[in-house]
């Protein structure tokens, strides 16, 4: 034993000396194992640490396992029954509700809870709060508010929060007692782990913050929420495990069936009582209503009748009065006419009398004048007649005494002259005839003829003259005679006429005289008549006057009576009517009240009728399920990276140990020759390697496990409301990775020395022939080879000479580059999400949520306002609704937001639907939906296939028209036509998307405020806020990326250092030789480094390709369902990775430079040991 012990101790001593002698090699193994183990165990511990932190938080705050909500609330009986259930540890009844708080014109939806309290069953309040500042409420009008919101909103402790008076169509005061609450403290609730606050049915649908009021502040009688702790959390250690969720799911199932019993009981007791009461009340109401209405209607009837009678009587009286009045009026008129006629008659009579007298007088005068004229005319006519008789007599005498005898004498003379002339003419004519018969004699004759003829003519003329005178004289005489006869006759006629006329005149005068006498008689009669007429008319008139005066009097009296009567009756009527109206009104008010009450009771009952309990677990808390996913995401990363590290560590160890064994070849031979067993010799290397690995594991593990989880959890802590992280060492991974490291090095050590141990000692003691040089393929390509510099040739040959090392270096460097690429790639993809999403895809700036109660006219008016507003580039009235999407095979229902734009033209201006790779726009036709690419990726669905969509609580089969490039969130688009044909519902537009014009003078907030004044606009969501939130989220990943890059750098340095170290120590002889040959330090370094640089180049190029694959793999394993990571690594990232790798390589080479400079030519070339 002691001998053996000694032997071992000598070997141990040897090993210890070896370690001290070859520190750098030892450290290399130590470091690479340390880094690998530390990284692996550290990352692996991050997830459990995160989960432990969270679970401790849940436990210490007594986070509920199951919560119940009910449409009808809960009563003490329910609570009692619940606490009797065997798997229930504690039950805390309470209240929860959603409210709207308006601050700076912006509405916030607030989740309201009652303060967690202790109850019989739970000694500690469930969902206990962490008081960050101030105190808990003590009175009904105080509240505590969450810390997250307090920082954002500007509320302070001591401020008062005011709720809007109505919420979702209900009076706020029907839920809580007051509207104003004073903030007295700041708290965190374990119900909320992230910045997510969940969705709401009111306001814009997103809860902004939560707060707590004391129980007493709530107005409802029945509890609205129940929180429970169950056996699931008390018996199962890991509340994020499947065991827990399985158990919870069983408990939930039980509670669901339990709830049906409770609901049934509720229906039987509370509800049926209420129903009975209601129906009784309804019946009574109806009876009373009928009765009251009957009474009222009869009253109304009577009233009507009385009124009618009154009006008819009044009418008759009025008519009689009117008739009397009319008669009277006529009488008056007649009287007036009579008076007038009477006076006219008198006047006329008088006139007639006067006229008669005048006529008579005129007649007398005319008679007298006529008699006078007649006498004158008779006298004159007698005179004229006498003168005419005397003239005739004178004329008769003249004519017969003078004129007729002278005229007879003259005529005798003329008779003789005419006879003379006749005889002259006869002679002349005879002479002429003679002459003419002698005419042949000549001129004398001629002239004689002429002369004779002249004489004849003269004679004839003279004859005519005489004849004429004679005729005239005869005529005159005759005429005179005639005239005389005529005058005699005229005279006789005048005498006759005169006589006639004289007689006629006398007769006429006589007639006139008799006429005048008659007229005088008439005149006297007329006067008599006239005088009697006057007196009788007067009498008549007086009688009529009397009659009329009497009538008038009577009429006035009647009128007065009527008015009095009417007035009296009217008053009575008015009173009656007023009474009736009052009665009616009162009756109606009463009835209405009763009806309203009954209706409300009915509504309430209806609501109660569909009573249902809802059972929730922790996963339903906003952000809760993300915790596990986020934690597992780190786990996924830790699956990939550390294995990679271990792999490289193995490679490095192998090279290192192989080198070590090779260096100790002679020693091995010596030991063998001395008689040491193979095992004993191998023991040295195994111990050497294992010691390094063990120390490395311990140091690396300790460091990794204590730092990495904290860093990562705290980084995530930015997103989660968690207390400072607690360490949960993932022992199994620490031990496994340590063992893996140690085991690996054992195997590697054994493998390295195995080959040597199989050889004979003599062989071992001979120097190992250097690896022979070989021609490489490149040499046969003469043009290239001959143009290569000398060192290049050497490098090229060396690269292929040590294939194992070549491979290892390339893998190591490639791994390092790949890690850096992955780090930057992750960063690209996360920042890319925000950049691409909000830079290229989400181009709208605001979402205005519209009130659902607004009419279509109001919406149209609002839209016209939007359209007219020049601050907007475009606006789109849309429907936005939440739903879920999934397939038959994958029941995981993913939340999806549907958008339906009112019209295609504006829709295209607002949403970009395009293929990610080609950027080709997608067309939204009327037979399907377009969804985010991520949906198709998650479910493996291709365009053209169908998916199950749940929209407004109905399931539909939808055809997928296409998948659009989208990174943040899951979105679905459909046309209004498709929506309506799919759901059969009329599309209710509820939002307006807007894009603000670039030259808009106002910013989004100002514009939003303008529109918030409109009652139809409920909330305005600004994309700017969303982008900020997104950016914050993504920033937290930056740190992890930084960690990855640091680790990658560390790895690169270790790998490169180790390999270069081996390379140099292996070639120390070569290096010494060339130094002896007179190579300067730099030339020497160049000779060695060229190889390393070439390897780094090849390795990093391979790493770039590998990094691409690696990044994709990592992204696949860490990405979330509702976010599509950008799977594009930017050129810069590749460049950075490449440059960084070279920087690391240079750092290593720089370190090596001094080592190389130190190589002693003397020592190296002494001899071969």
């Amino acid at each position, binding site marked *: 034993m002691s001998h053996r012990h000694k032997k071992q101790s000598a070997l141990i001593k040897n090993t210890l000396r070896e370690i001290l002698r070859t520190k750098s090699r030892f450290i290399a193994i130590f470091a690479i194992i340390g880094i690998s183990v530390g990284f692996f165990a550290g990352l692996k511990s991050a997830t459990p640490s995160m989960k432990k932190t969270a679970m401790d938080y849940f436990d210490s705050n007594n986070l509920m396992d199951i919560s119940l909500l009910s449409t009808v609330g809960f009563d003490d009986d329910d609570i009692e029954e619940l606490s009797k259930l065997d798997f229930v540890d504690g039950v805390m009844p309470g209240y929860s509700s959603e409210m709207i708080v308006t601050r700076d014109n912006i509405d916030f939806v607030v989740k309201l809870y009652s303060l967690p309290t202790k109850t019989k069953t739970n000694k500690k309040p469930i969902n206990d709060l962490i008081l960050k500042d101030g105190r808990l409420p003590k009175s009904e009008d105080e509240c505590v508010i969450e810390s997250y919101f307090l920082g954002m909103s500007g509320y302070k402790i001591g401020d008062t929060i005011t709720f809007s008076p109505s919420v979702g169509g209900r009076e706020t005061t029907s839920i809580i007692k007051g509207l104003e609450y004073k903030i007295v403290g700041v708290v965190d609730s374990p119900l909320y782990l992230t910045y997510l606050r969940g969705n709401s049915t009111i306001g814009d649908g997103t809860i902004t913050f939560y707060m707590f009021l004391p129980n007493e502040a709530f107005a409802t009688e029945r509890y609205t929420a129940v929180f429970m702790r169950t056996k699931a959390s008390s018996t199962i250690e890991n509340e994020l495990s499947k065991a827990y969720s399985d158990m919870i799911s069983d408990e939930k199932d039980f509670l669901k069936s339990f709830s049906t019993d409770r609901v049934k009981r509720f229906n039987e007791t509370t509800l049926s009582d209420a129903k009975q009461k209601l129906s009784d009340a309804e019946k009574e109401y109806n009876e009373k209503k009928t009765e009251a209405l009957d009474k009222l209607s009869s009253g109304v009837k009577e009233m009507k009748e009385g009124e009618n009678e009154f009006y008819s009587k009044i009418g008759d009286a009025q008519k009689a009065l009117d008739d009397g009045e009319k008669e009277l009026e006529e009488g008056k008129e007649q009287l007036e006419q009579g008076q007038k006629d009477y006076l006219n008659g008198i006047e006329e009579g008088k006139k007639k009398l006067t006229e008669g007298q005048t006529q008579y007088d005129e007649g007398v005068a005319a008679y007298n004048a006529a008699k006078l004229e007649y006498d004158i005319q008779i006298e004159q006519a007698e005179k004229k007649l006498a003168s005419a008789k005397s003239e005739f007599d004178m004329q008769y005498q003249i004519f017969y005494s003078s004129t007729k005898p002278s005229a007879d004498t003259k005529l005798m003379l003329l008779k003789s002259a005419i006879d003379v002339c006749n005889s002259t003419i006869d002679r002349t004519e005879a002479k002429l005839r003679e002459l003419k018969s002698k005419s042949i004699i000549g001129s004398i004759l001629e002239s004689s003829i002429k002369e004779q003829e002249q004489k004849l003519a003269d004679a004839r003329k003279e004859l005519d003259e005489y004849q004429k005178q004679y005729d005239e004289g005869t005529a005159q005489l005759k005429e005179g005679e005639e005239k005389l006869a005529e005058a005699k006759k005229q005279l006789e006629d005048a005498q006759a006429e005169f006589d006639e006329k004289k007689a006629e005149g006398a007769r006429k005068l006589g007639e006139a005289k008799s006429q005048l006498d008659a007229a005088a008689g008439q005149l006297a009669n007329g006067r008599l008549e006239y005088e009697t007429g006057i007196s009788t008319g007067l009498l008549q008139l007086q009688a009529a006057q009397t009659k009329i005066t009497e009538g008038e009097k009577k009429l006035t009296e009647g009128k007065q009576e009527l008015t009095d009567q009417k007035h009296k009756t009217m008053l009575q009527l008015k009173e009656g009517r007023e009474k009736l109206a009052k009665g009616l009104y009162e009756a109606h008010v009463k009835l209405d009240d009763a009806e309203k009450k009954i209706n409300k009771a009915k509504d309430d009952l209806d609501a109660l009728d569909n009573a249902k309990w809802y059972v929730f677990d922790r996963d339903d808390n906003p952000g809760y399920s993300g915790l596990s996913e986020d934690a597992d995401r780190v786990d996924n990363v830790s699956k990939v990276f550390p294995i990679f590290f271990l792999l490289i560590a193995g490679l490095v160890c192998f090279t290192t140990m192989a080198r070590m064994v090779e260096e100790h070849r002679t020693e091995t031979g010596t030991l063998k020759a001395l008689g040491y067993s193979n095992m004993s010799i191998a023991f040295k290397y195994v111990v050497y390697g294992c010691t390094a690995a063990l120390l490395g594991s311990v140091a690396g593990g300790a460091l990794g496990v204590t730092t990495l989880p904290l860093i990562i959890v705290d980084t995530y802590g930015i997103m989660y409301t968690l207390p400072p992280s607690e360490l949960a060492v993932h022992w199994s991974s620490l031990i496994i990775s340590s063992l893996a490291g140690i085991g690996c090095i054992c195997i590697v050590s054994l493998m390295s020395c195995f080959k040597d141990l199989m050889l004979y000692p003599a062989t071992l003691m001979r120097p190992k022939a250097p690896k022979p*040089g070989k021609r490489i393929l490149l040499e046969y390509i003469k043009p290239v080879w001959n143009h290569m510099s000398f060192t290049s040739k050497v490098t090229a040959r060396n690269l292929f000479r040590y294939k194992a090392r070549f491979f290892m270096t390339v893998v190591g460097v490639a791994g390092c580059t790949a890690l850096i690429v992955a780090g930057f790639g992750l960063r690209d993809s996360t920042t890319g999400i925000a950049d691409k999403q909000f830079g290229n895809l989400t181009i709208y700036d605001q979402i205005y949520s519209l009130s659902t109660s607004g009419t279509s006219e109001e919406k149209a008016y609002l839209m016209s306002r939007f359209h007219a507003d020049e601050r907007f580039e475009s606006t789109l009235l849309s429907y936005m609704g939440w739903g879920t999407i999934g397939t038959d095979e994958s029941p995981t229902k993913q939340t999806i937001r549907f958008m339906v734009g009112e019209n295609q033209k504006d829709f295209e201006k607002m949403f970009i639907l395009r293929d990610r790779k080609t950027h080709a726009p997608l067309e939204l036709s009327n037979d399907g939906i377009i969804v985010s690419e991520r949906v198709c990726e998650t479910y493996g669905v291709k365009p053209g296939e169908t998916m199950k969509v749940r929209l407004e609580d109905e399931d539909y089969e939808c055809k997928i028209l296409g998948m659009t490039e989208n990174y943040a969130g899951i979105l679905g688009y459909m046309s209004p036509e498709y929506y309506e044909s799919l759901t059969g519902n009329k599309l209710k537009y509820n939002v307006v998307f807007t894009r603000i014009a670039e030259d808009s003078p106002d910013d989004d907030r100002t514009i939003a405020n303008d529109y918030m004044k409109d009652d139809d606009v409920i909330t305005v969501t600004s994309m700017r806020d969303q982008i900020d939130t997104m950016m914050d989220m993504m920033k937290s990943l930056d740190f992890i990326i930084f960690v990855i890059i640091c680790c990658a750098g560390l790895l690169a340095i270790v790998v490169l250092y180790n390999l270069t170290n081996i390379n140099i120590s292996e070639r120390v002889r070569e290096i010494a030789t060339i130094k002896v040959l007179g190579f300067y330090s730099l030339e020497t370094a160049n000779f060695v480094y060229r190889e390393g640089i070439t390897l780094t180049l090849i390795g990093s190029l391979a790493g770039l390709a590998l990094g691409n694959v690696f990044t994709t793999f990592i992204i696949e394993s860490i990405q979330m369902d509702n976010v599509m990571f950008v799977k594009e690594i930017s050129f810069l990232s590749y460049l950075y990775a490449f440059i960084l790798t070279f920087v690391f390589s240079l750092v290593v080479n720089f370190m090596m430079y001094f080592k190389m400079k130190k190589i002693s*030519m003397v020592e190296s070339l002494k001899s071969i040991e």
Partner: protein
Amino acid sequence: MQKDFVKFENVYKRYKMGEVTITAADGVSFSVDEGEFAVVVGLSGAGKTTVLNILGGIDCCDEGKIIVGGKDISNLNQHDLASYRRYDIGFVFQFYNLIPNLTARENVELATQICRESLDADLALDSVGLSERKNNFPSQLSGGEQQRVSIARALAKKPKLLLCDEPTGALDYNTGKSILKLLQNKCHEDGMTVILITHNSAITPMANRVIRMRSGKVISNVVNPSPLPVEQIEW
């Protein structure tokens, strides 16, 4: 021919091995004329290799003065020493120290490419009788052939001084002889100053000058006026 081409004056070299100080060169003084074939002979540990290393510029002395070709090299810095090695010195080692990954010619070229005036690699190899195996890798050559390559590499640099450290130590008798012959020929025919160290006193007759060392000291420095051709030496 320059007298005292190489001159050592009171050169000391001490190595510290933990607490023990070993004086490898203990006041070494000697000189070699130009064109001489000098052999430094002594037992193992006599300090001859130390002297050669210091002379060759691959080690430095602690005290004393070394003059080569009129140039003091005892106080040169690293860079100047490298230049000195590059232009003035040719080294031949016991184990050849060829670069295994380079062919015979390339090994020679490795030396020639850094010199201002150098022999053509082919000529150098021809001169050592290796015309046929220029393109062979060291592993494909016998020990003697490798040593010839090594000599060719040293000569190709046209050094002022050829230093040989037990060049036959790893070779069989005949091969060793032929190498010595080659070196002697180079000295006598080309006028190359050769300093060779060996523990084998039997080969001293072929030298112009024999320097004996013991315990870091030069115990004799004798000029051999009539060196024997190698062929006539037996050991």
